[in-house]
């Protein structure tokens, strides 16, 4: 019972039945439309609780080919509906309060000593009851990951606030003979309900619209991923909620070989679960791997051939040929020979070269540009081609 969401919701429904009977009965007896109206409003809460029970059952449907995430999203629909119902509740309470404040004949309300305990029992007593049950409901909802239950729990806590406002009105009326006192309090409560209802409504709507988990959670996921050795970065991250579950689609930049991806994926999954488990009981993680995106460029190496031996020339001016190399991720992945031409600049431009490598032992200065062009001249540390990874 303590942690079974369905049983908790059955207890909540039973509480609503008790509250409907007591509030409507007492409200009629002491002729308080606020108390009686509050009682009738609880009929809709009772139906909401029954719908939440149905949603909890539906959300437990196992994922299938047709519904790969199961039916968890139905809970977000529940949040959305509870949010809407809270707007309606706030509107009813507000309307009732304004009508009472400006038009109702309060003289018929009976708050004498014999009725005080009855009125307080129906208002403050039920408020305390609603508050305790609402807290229990949200706590079980959080631990079991049922967001519709959390939303309904917050709605129950709002009921407690209405009860407190009504009770304050009852006390005010008893002490100061001011029967209108409960209405300003009720108006304040209506504003609070709009605020809570708005949060629940937006959360449900966000989930239905596949809104991101938010910057805070996304940062946690990124941090978890890049903490794994072998992960260079996170290229793309898309997250959303499916009911109480988190769904993350993550693109990892890594230079690790394909056979290492399964180990990286397992470790990333473990770390993301670890960081999110306090807020989401279950996380669906979809990981893809890509090579880090690095600029590709074409460079030329000035080559000097002397006695059949190749080495990097001291300058392009003394080069006998050029190696035109494609560089990806800092490594030469393709090379082609080009004989030195009379117009070197024309040759390098034709080949779309962006940098020219030479080896001048005496030079230490930073890269300079080839005269009349935007081609950089870079000084290599060695004249030996093996330093470039070339045979």
């Amino acid at each position, binding site marked *: 019972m303590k942690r079974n969401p369905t049983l908790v919701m059955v207890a909540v429904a039973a509480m609503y039945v008790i509250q409907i009977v007591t509030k409507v009965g007492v409200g009629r007896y002491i002729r308080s439309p606020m108390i009686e109206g509050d009682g009738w409003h609880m009929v809709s809460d009772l139906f909401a609780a029954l719908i939440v029970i149905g949603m909890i059952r539906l959300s437990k449907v196992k994922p299938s080919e047709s519904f790969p995430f199961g039916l968890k999203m139905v809970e977000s629909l529940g949040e959305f509906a509870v949010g809407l119902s809270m707007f309606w509740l706030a509107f009813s309470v507000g309307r009732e309060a304004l009508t009472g404040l400006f038009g109702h004949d309060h003289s018929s309300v009976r708050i004498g000593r014999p009725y005080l305990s009855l009125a307080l029992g129906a208002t403050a007593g039920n408020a305390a009851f609603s508050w305790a049950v609402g807290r229990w409901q949200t706590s079980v909802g959080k631990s079991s990951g049922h967001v519709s239950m959390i939303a309904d729990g917050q709605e129950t806590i709002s009921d407690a606030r209405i009860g407190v406002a009504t009770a304050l009105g009852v006390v005010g009326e008893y002490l100061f003979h001011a029967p209108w006192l409960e209405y300003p309090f009720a108006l304040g409560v209506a504003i609070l309900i709009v605020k809570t209802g708005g949060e629940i409504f937006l959360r449900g709507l966000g989930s239905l619209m596949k809104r991101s988990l938010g910057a805070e959670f996304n940062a946690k996921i990124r941090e978890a991923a890049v903490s794994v050795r072998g992960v260079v970065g996170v290229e793309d991250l898309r997250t959303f909620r499916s009911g109480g579950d988190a769904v993350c689609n993550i693109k990892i930049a890594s230079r690790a070989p394909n056979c290492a991806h399964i180990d990286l994926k397992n*470790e990333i999954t473990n770390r993301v679960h670890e960081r999110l488990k306090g807020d989401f009981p279950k996380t669906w993680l979809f990981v893809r791997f890509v090579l880090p995106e690095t600029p590709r460029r074409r460079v030329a190496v000035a080559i000097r051939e002397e006695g059949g031996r190749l080495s990097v020339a001291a300058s392009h001016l003394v080069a006998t040929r050029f190696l035109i190399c494609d560089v990806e991720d*800092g490594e030469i992945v393709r090379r082609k020979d080009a004989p030195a031409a009379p117009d070197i600049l024309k040759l390098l431009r034709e080949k779309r070269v962006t940098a020219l490598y030479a080896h001048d032992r005496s030079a230490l200065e930073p890269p300079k540009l080839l005269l009349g062009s935007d081609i950089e001249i870079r000084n290599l*540390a*060695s004249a030996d081609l093996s*330093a470039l990874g070339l045979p």
Partner: protein
Amino acid sequence: MSERTVYVRFRESRSGQSELRYAASLCRRLDADLMVIAPEPCSSMRVLGLADVWSPDPLRRELIRFASGTTPHLPTGSLLVGDFGDWPKNELLRHHRLYPRDQEEFCPPKTPPKLLVPFGKGGSGERAGALAVSLSRAMSDPAPSGAGHGSEIVFYHTTWRNPALPPALPRLHMHPGSAATQARLDELARDINHRSRIETASDVVSGIVGSALAENADLIVMARGVGTCLGSYMDRVLARTTVPVIVALEVSP
């Protein structure tokens, strides 16, 4: 290790500069010299001028030396970092080889390094354990530069599951020979912060690689097993892991 010198080859490529950066980071922890093996002719000043290699935490220049030639004669038991694949195999087997697996830093600053040493019932685990202990002592020594931060060794063993025994207690599944190795490793590392991690993983390589990631290990220390004809664990771990691996030398110094 025979001496406190780390050897790395100079290459202009991104991976070559990553190895240089990793070797420099390891030298900082070991308070060791860095010997850069560069082809002749090479401008050492130009290598030192590679700002992106040495920043943001430069190694003291007096610790960096240069050697020329493709296969200079190194003392047996030297520590080689990076790709020396074109060196003669006999020469390579005389040294400890460290493969940085594309990492650029030995371990994050101000955190004690963690070494994972897989072992079984064979002698390779003990050889790897001896190297790990030697490295760990070198890192724990109060070096003049204050580089020592202590370290931790995790001895790792995974074993085939015995279906007759409860799966929750992996130690019960251990072969007596492996248990004896563990006892010897515990004795070897008695003065060093160490512990054991025993599992019944689905396969040995997945267990080693997965545990290295889960433990946030900075280095996997292994030695080649004797008598494996095909599918050496060491080769398979090297092909699959993203955690740097050091392989112990294969002839006694």
